[in-house]
């Protein structure tokens, strides 16, 4: 038998629950809209949370890593015979290439000496361990256990031993979020070698991203090497991205060089492009010399 007190308490609880639910709906929709507006607070919130939870994530990942390593070792064991045959063929091919490369290197050194080619801009890197991936159907991204304290900057390129993996889209103190090249929102300026044609590599959720805005299809062939163009000054130029292929629908795609199936560590590149002096504002001169620079008349000529 329920008393009227019980009933009124239940009614009160029901009201509180409805108010809470309404509040949750409003907060969720506000967050969703902020995310769609690319509000930096959402990204900051992500990175704060990643910074806070990263140590415990590493702890829980340890047993999963052991399991996946065992599985991978077993797969490697099964593949070893086929790998051996492939490696023998590869050695034969590379021996021919080695001689060619040596000749090209000598030629290149001579040409550099003749042309006084500028030295490459200073490029350093920091290596991180991938501790989490998005795991869901909405985005293809990963979380790396290095951050601002290690010198990682927003927009930096991420590479594995073979090629570009993606770019940094969020930096916390000790964690970094990478957007993989395969994600729908990934866009990367590339150059196709040897023709030098420029294009944009656009992720579309498949393992072979599309080539868009190709300058010209002239001299572009399947199997051509695709590298970063360095346009925009965010990525260094000439990082290997993959090989060009064409599909039945006559569009160009890229088989990525990076091995996403064995991705455990990534290098985040700290790239500083060449300094370009395009105005006199950066020169330290006194006032008189500055006015002379602006008028083009040397100070000594007035006397």
């Amino acid at each position: 038998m329920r008393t009227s007190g019980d009933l009124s308490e239940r009614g009160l609880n029901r009201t509180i629950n409805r108010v809470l639910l309404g509040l949750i709906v409003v907060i969720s929709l506000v967050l969703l809209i902020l995310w769609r507006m690319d509000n930096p607070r959402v990204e900051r919130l992500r990175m704060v949370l990643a910074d806070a939870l990263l140590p415990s994530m590493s702890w829980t990942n340890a047993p999963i890593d052991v399991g996946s390593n065992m599985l991978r070792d077993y797969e490697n064991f099964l593949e070893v015979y086929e790998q051996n045959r492939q490696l023998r063929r590869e050695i034969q091919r590379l021996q021919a290439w080695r001689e060619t490369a040596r000749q090209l290197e000598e030629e290149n050194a001579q040409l550099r000496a003749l042309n006084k080619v500028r030295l490459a801009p200073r490029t350093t890197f920091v290596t991180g361990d991938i501790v989490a991936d998005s795991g869901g159907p909405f985005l293809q991204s990963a979380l790396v256990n290095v951050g601002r304290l290690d010198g990682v900057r927003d927009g930096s390129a991420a590479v594995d031993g073979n090629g570009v993996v993606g770019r940094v889209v969020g930096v916390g103190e000790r964690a970094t979020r990478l957007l993989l090249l395969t994600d729908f929102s990934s866009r990367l300026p590339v150059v196709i070698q040897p023709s030098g044609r420029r294009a944009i590599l656009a992720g579309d959720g498949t393992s072979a991203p599309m080539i868009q805005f190709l300058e010209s299809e002239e001299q572009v062939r399947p199997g051509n090497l695709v590298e970063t163009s360095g346009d925009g000054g965010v990525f260094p130029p000439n990082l290997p991205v993959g090989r060009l292929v064409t599909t039945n629908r006559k569009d160009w795609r890229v088989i990525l060089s990076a091995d996403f199936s064995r991705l455990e560590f990534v290098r985040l590149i700290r790239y500083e492009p060449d300094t370009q002096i395009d105005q006199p504002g950066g020169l330290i001169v006194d006032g008189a010399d500055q006015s002379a620079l602006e008028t083009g008349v040397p100070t000594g000529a007035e006397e």
Partner: protein
Amino acid sequence: MADTLTLPLILRMLGFTLLGFVAISMEIAPLGLTANAMPSPDILFCLTAYCALRRPEAVPMLLVFALGLSRDLLTDAPPGAGALTLVLAAVFLMEARGWFIHRPFWMEWLCVTIIFAATLAVQWLLLAATFARPAVAQDLAWLLIITAGSYVFVALLLRVFLQVGYADEKTRLGSQS
């Protein structure tokens, strides 16, 4: 919200939080970074659904929302969409738990799968309504299948190892009738 906070209740909530955190850690473990890798099962949903039916007092709305939002933020999913649908699913299951108590497990499994499909549909609609790129239908279908399969394992683990079941409820309901 209905119950006063007692020590056993606080412990249950802490237990649910801990399990929720483990579920998120398992979901985001870097097992498949290739574009065609299978999506991770939504273990947090399985856990929440199972506990909402059997221990609703240990699954308060705000806690579910906090866990859902943490998962959204850590997995780069649209923030708020996953958390909102998780809360709505938990509330629906809590309201309907009286119906589930005397039903066989396969029926519960089927209903939970349908509810999960509904949460995916709501997320898809929310993204479409905000002109964001919704997930590919094929990926969502795989997520649904894998999560439905995982629910059985989650239920088994919670029932066998943590003794989370309907036993008390059935006894109480039986003595009342």
